[in-house]
């Protein structure tokens, strides 16, 4: 703590016009200082406020505005945006793969045999075309490469968004699976309201219907199968692992929807639970 005015540190109000709330928000959000100063005194000395009470009025108005806008902005990256993005990602991936097959088939009739799939399209896109027929093929291959790159960017975006929409769920499930679960449920709220047994088989609807028609055994897990805690558990204990994971994921989804704060202890509880399941009956 220092009591003399420091020359380097700048208070949020410095250079600001009184009443410019957006400017104040910007200053509050982006400004920094190593250590606090006696800002009320500094603000009065700088002519920003008439006295301490006046300074606190301005500070209250500015912090409320900044917090309100900050919250609204974060919530724009909401679960419905996430669902649009994940569907777009699936479409982009599927379309890229379909077009890559078309490119491979067409290219096979004009050029030497190459690889199939996205990698094959990447090679063809690099080719120097000879004539308009070649050009249609190489251009189409270039579109495939672009679409694949866009799918990768969409994937990164959905994973980031999942972390801000559902921080606890993303921490437990991993961002990709968290995004998947929210999309399958149709939103964070609907996911939060589902019993954990439903969450456990989300994405296994076909298997579930087959079971209900009496044509198959009941599915033990849906997309949560992709989680290391299910896949990496030996088959005999997989059902228990899936149940334990689904239970914690559904608690995480509820906290994310109803409270929104981070609860790091959930991860540790899950780790401990899986550890017990994996080691029981051993040794």
């Amino acid at each position: 703590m220092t009591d003399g005015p420091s020359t380097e540190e700048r208070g949020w109000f410095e250079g600001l016009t009184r009443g410019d709330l957006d400017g104040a928000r910007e200053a509050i959000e982006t400004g920094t200082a190593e250590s606090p100063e006696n800002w009320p005194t500094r603000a009065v000395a700088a002519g920003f406020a008439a006295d301490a009470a006046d300074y606190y009025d301005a500070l209250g108005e500015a912090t409320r505005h900044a917090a309100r806008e900050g919250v609204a902005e974060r919530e724009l990256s909401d679960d419905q945006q996430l669902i649009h993005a994940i569907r777009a990602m699936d479409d982009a991936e599927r379309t890229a793969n379909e077009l890559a097959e078309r490119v491979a088939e067409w290219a096979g009739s004009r050029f030497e045999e190459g690889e199939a799939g996205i990698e094959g399209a990447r090679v063809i896109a690099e080719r120097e075309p000879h004539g308009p027929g070649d050009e249609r093929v190489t251009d189409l291959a270039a579109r495939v490469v672009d679409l694949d790159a866009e799918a990768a960017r969409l994937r990164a975006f959905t994973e980031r968004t999942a972390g801000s929409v559902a921080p606890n769920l993303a921490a437990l499930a991993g961002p990709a699976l968290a995004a998947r679960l929210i999309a399958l449920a149709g939103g964070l709220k609907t996911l939060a309201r589902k019993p954990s047994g439903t969450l456990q088989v989300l994405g296994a609807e076909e298997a579930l219907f087959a079971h209900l028609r009496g044509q198959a055994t009941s599915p033990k897990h849906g997309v949560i199968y992709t989680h290391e805690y299910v896949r990496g558990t030996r088959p005999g204990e997989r059902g228990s692992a899936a149940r334990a994971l689904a239970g914690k994921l559904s608690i995480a989804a509820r906290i994310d929807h109803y409270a929104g704060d981070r609860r790091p202890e959930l991860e540790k509880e899950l780790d401990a639970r899986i550890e017990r399941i994996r080691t029981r009956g051993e040794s």
Partner: protein
Amino acid sequence: MSDDRSGSTDDGSGNSPSLPTGVTYREFGDESEARLATRGRPVYGERTEGEWRLWDPRRSKVGAMYEKGLDLRLGGGKKVLYLGAASGTTASHVADFSRCVYAVEFAARPVRDLVGVAEDRSNLFPLLEDARKPASYAHVVEPVDALIQDVATRGQAGVARANQRFLADDGVLILTVKARSEDVTGDPADVFESVLADLREAYEVLDTERLEPFHDAHLAVVARPR
């Protein structure tokens, strides 16, 4: 401490040596026992009696600290930095008897409610910031008389140390340590010992108290900067 709080109807000038001006025990309705209260607009559906609102120790760790008879060395009319304000349950009570409260919370959803609370309390300043990054709000927060921390996250001692820069030399740290946030499986007593050891690098610990039965496996710590 029940001798101090029977049937008091004073103006809230503090009726126990450790209660700040503006905090008092009073009777609510037909309840026979006097309850902790501050004066202000209700926030979370708590009972009211005139301008007084019940401060529920089960909903608030600072409330529980008073209930357990801890001396928080917090007078009325002080400047406070509150870390982990959530939706403002406790921060609103503290604002009722303080000069001003800078309330830091990094999760967006609770901050929405916190802003609502601040709309009724012109001395409560909500900050959507991360308490692990004090430089991101030191251009807004002034030096304070008390640092109240309830972040329930791993590294609670580290957060208190990083924020020591805000505390006046004769200021007080009022810290809640949640054992399960540091280590879910460890014995709370061991977890508290290791957090305290870490804290002592920068603070002199004046008093500690477990918050049962109000909050399980939580330790209250009162400390001052070294």
